[in-house]
């Protein structure tokens, strides 16, 4: 026997829907509350941690880097804003702004020596020398973080990798692939000759000379005609250690 649709059936269905909705809302609410609670706990824990290890974070570059890594994993950026509890708690925002200013300063001061391309390692050494008074040491990781903050200014600060080395670029020069390859080759001895470049990359003679001339004009290379074999050497202050006075 077939049952006909009746008002009773409709009412039952509506009541069931209501029940489900109510239940769903409840579950969602419980979840949100739980989440909120967890977040609060998490935040307190993180704050506690930061407070407890405040000195380590400020003084020890390795620890600081690990702390950043941890924050990055859980999606917290202590540098995102200078306001807020991180800055108040750690003064960490200020620290990187300060580094940023000092990095800009060093890049400008050494620009005429290296053409606006400086070895990250050397930048770090110079930075430590300058900050002697501040006494907390600075790692390359800190430099990278500070530079990434500088990008916001659109001033063309960038870190480029050439071979194994990282170079910090403070001029808007575009280096093409040829230039990068030459810089990489130069890392071995600090210089290259036209022959070396041609032999190593099997370039036609004009290509090597062209690229080297460009690097020379940009102030990234310096010529040296003083060697006994009287072959011109192109030196690159940005890849040789301690070329800057």
């Amino acid at each position, binding site marked *: 026997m077939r049952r006909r649709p009746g008002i009773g059936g409709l009412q039952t269905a509506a009541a069931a829907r209501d029940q489900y909705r109510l239940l769903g809302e409840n579950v969602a609410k419980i979840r949100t509350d739980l989440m909120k609670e967890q977040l609060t706990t998490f935040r307190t824990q993180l704050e506690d941690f930061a407070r407890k290890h405040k000195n380590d974070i400020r003084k020890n570059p390795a620890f600081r880097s690990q702390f950043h890594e941890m924050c990055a994993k859980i999606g917290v950026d202590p540098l995102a804003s200078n306001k807020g509890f991180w800055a108040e708690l750690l003064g960490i925002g200020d620290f990187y702004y300060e580094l940023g200013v000092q990095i800009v300063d060093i890049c400008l001061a050494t620009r*005429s*020596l290296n*053409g606006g391309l400086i070895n990250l390692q050397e930048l770090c050494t110079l930075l430590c020398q300058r900050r002697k008074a501040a006494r907390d040491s600075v790692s390359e990781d800190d430099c990278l973080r500070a530079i990434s903050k500088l990008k916001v200014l659109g001033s063309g600060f960038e870190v480029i990798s050439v071979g194994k080395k990282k170079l910090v670029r403070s001029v808007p020069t575009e280096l093409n692939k040829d230039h990068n390859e030459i810089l990489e080759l130069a890392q071995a001895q600090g*210089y290259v000759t036209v022959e070396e470049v041609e032999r190593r990359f099997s370039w036609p003679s004009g290509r090597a000379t062209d690229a080297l001339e460009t690097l*020379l*004009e940009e*102030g990234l290379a*310096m*010529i*040296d*005609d*003083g*060697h*006994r074999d009287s072959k011109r*050497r192109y*030196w690159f*202050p940005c890849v*040789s250690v*301690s*070329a*800057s*006075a």
Partner: protein
Amino acid sequence: MQKLGDFKLPQFFNYPPYFTLQPVRDTREKQVQLWKELIIDYCKTQKIFVIGIEEEFPLFTNQVIERFLSHEAKETFLSALVSEGRAEWMDKGHKRCLILWHRIQEWADLIMRFVKETGLEDSVMTIEEIRSGIESRGTELHGMDRTVLTRALKLLEQKGKAAIFKGSSADDEGVKFSA
């Protein structure tokens, strides 16, 4: 850090390209600037007043990296000092260069300070005494170049602060200071 006697050499002294004149303007300017400072510094600490461009000069050769300055480079760096008033060519051929890490006026001031500090106003000294006497020992005036000293004294004479007397020989030229 490499040294020349007791003189500390700057980093760039060990970087070969600084011994070749750089063709690019900005780079060259920096290069000239660094060499100018080095020359003045070195001459001042070593009390060298004259650089002979064709003679051996320890600063212009770096044995360690086997580089030396060409004649053209030496002349460029010294000429840059000349144009700043920190040096003077002593001949037309630009073979000898007088290095003035203090300008003549500054030397004259130093002499007057020395005279005041030692209470030698109104007394007579020979030029040799100023250069090598006991009174000037330990001051910058000790061992100073005779030409530079004479010129500084002449400047003081023009200003009425000193009077130079000719002696029978160059050795006993005298000078009387007035405060």
